[in-house]
């Protein structure tokens, strides 16, 4: 047997092994997409991967059952706003904590990191009273402000700080020699060099906001204001039982942005997982 043949057999075996390992991860997704095209009766009938009758109208009904397009847009703009704000604030705060010498910097970092140890569920009631006193119930403000300035924002700040700590100081010195101010160094040197960390924070933040359920449940009451996770739990019949085919069709639509983000930024996502290991 030649070396090339051994190589081919080796690769084939590996591919088969990986395919087998991938089944538990891929199968539920395929089942979800397939069930989105089925009737409720077929979902609970004889199991089959492909629908016997393709019900494309499920995907239309999703939009007529409740203001799904509006809810989709809500989730999208809230996730983008949270991501952009978190990137700005975490990179500024992370840079300051990593690079600026000021009294109590260490204590401040400790104080911030300690916030990560408080479960979000514990703070939801005080947050509710705070938001209510500000008159922001049934608005999107709490869904933007809480992730940005709450524990997730702290985690993003910590991640950025760790990355900035590793940037060579001589680059900042070179920036100062070139005439950059502190903010100029942040903008023109530190940020462009931190693309992997920024990508990690962006992806993690977007997914965090996209999947947020508890806060919308507490703070929102109008259908028009709902975000996707809340909307998905709202495809029920008059008895309050889930309309599985609509729910799964809607879920299929809901994962599309995540799939698109993943396809565009596969490399950054891989790096982001490597980077997010820093926080452990």
């Amino acid at each position, binding site marked *: 047997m030649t070396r090339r043949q051994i190589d081919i057999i080796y690769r084939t075996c590996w591919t088969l092994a990986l395919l087998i390992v991938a089944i538990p991860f891929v199968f539920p997704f395929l089942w979800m997409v397939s069930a989105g095209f089925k009737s409720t009766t077929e979902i609970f009938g004889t199991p089959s991967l492909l629908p016997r009758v393709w019900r494309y109208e499920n995907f239309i009904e999703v939009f007529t059952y409740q203001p799904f397009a509006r809810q989709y847009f809500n989730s999208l703009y809230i996730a983008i706003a949270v991501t952009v704000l978190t990137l700005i604030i975490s990179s500024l705060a992370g840079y300051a904590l990593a690079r600026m010498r000021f009294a109590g910097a260490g204590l401040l970092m400790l104080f911030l990191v300690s916030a990560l140890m408080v479960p979000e569920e514990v703070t939801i009631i005080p947050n509710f009273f705070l938001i209510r006193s500000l008159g922001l119930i049934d608005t999107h403000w709490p869904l933007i402000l809480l992730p940005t300035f709450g524990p997730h924002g702290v985690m993003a700040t910590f991640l950025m700080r760790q990355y900035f700590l590793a940037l060579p100081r001589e*680059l900042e*010195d*070179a920036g100062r*020699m070139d*005439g950059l101010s502190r903010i100029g160094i942040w903008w023109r040197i530190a940020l462009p060099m931190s693309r992997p960390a920024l990508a990690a924070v962006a992806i993690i933040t977007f997914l965090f906001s996209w999947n947020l359920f508890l806060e919308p449940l507490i703070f929102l009451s109008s259908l028009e204001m709902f975000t996707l996770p809340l909307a998905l739990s709202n495809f029920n019949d008059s008895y309050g039982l889930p309309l599985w085919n609509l729910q799964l069709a809607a879920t299929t639509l809901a994962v599309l942005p995540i799939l698109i983000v993943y396809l565009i930024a596969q490399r950054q996502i891989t790096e982001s997982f490597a980077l997010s290991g820093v926080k452990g």
Partner: protein
Amino acid sequence: MADVVLKDIRKQFGATEIIRGVDLTVDEGEFAVFVGPSGCGKSTLLRMISGLEDVSSGELHIGGRRMNDVQAAKRGVGMVFQSYALYPHLNVRDNMGFGLKVRKVPVDERDRRVREAAATLKLDALLDRYPRQLSGGQRQRVAIGRAIVGSPDVFLFDEPLSNLDAELRVHMRSEIAALHNRLKTTMIYVTHDQIEAMTLADKIVVLRDGLVEQIGSPRDLYEKPNNVFVAQFIGSPRMNLLPAAEAKLISPTHALPASAVSVGVRPEHLRVVEPTTDSLSATVTLNEYTGAVTLMHVELPGGQTCLVVDDKRDMPPIGTRIGLTADKDNLHFFDADGRAVS
């Protein structure tokens, strides 16, 4: 071009004083080298001149202007860093032109100056490459180019060659010397390598523990060191230091200064002769053949070790008793405090 004048410059980090009162003048167009062991404060001093570190006390003047409180970018100095400090996200052209862009120099003018500097440093073909695509020597040339395009009055080099291999270091050293000859700009260069200091400098500043030990030309420092530290720091291999009484044996005609307690003689100034009562007796313990010269380690009757550099290929074998002599002009005497006495 500008001169650099330091008057009683001091630097404190908390309670620790790193620079303990330095007075120094680097004349216009001069190539000054700060040299000294690790932790002596040479890089801190350079950073104070550049504006990257504040001056705790004292006066710093560049081109006659007080610079203590002037921002780094407005001092008219260009700096080359040890690790090159090239921006990894910018190509060579943008790295070199970055400072001009920050200062809002028009694009045409910026391009012209980058092209000129690139031509001077033979970087024309590399302008579109990124730092990661360059060799160590090329990166160092880009770092120098970045300093050149700003047309500074003073160039500051912070151990620029220490990350290069030995061969490239020699090459870059000659390029920096050639650059100084061409630009005639004031240059201040920090190194711990005394060969770099000796070959490049018009003026060497030897520092130890935040103080200047001696300032002078390479020849002054080699031939007339002020103290034991400078005598042993300048010159490679380092100067042998023996009890003053041995001077009579090394050079019988020399009159011993009254306050001398030790005598220094450089390895290259010792001559191997037949052992007689008029020479310093020694036993060969090791020969190191390096090609051009041989380093001979010898042991004196008192147990001290001593090094001899000789250009002969056939040195006495290990265990041979030999005599050592030297010309009286090549002996250096030091008092109990290590200061040179004549």
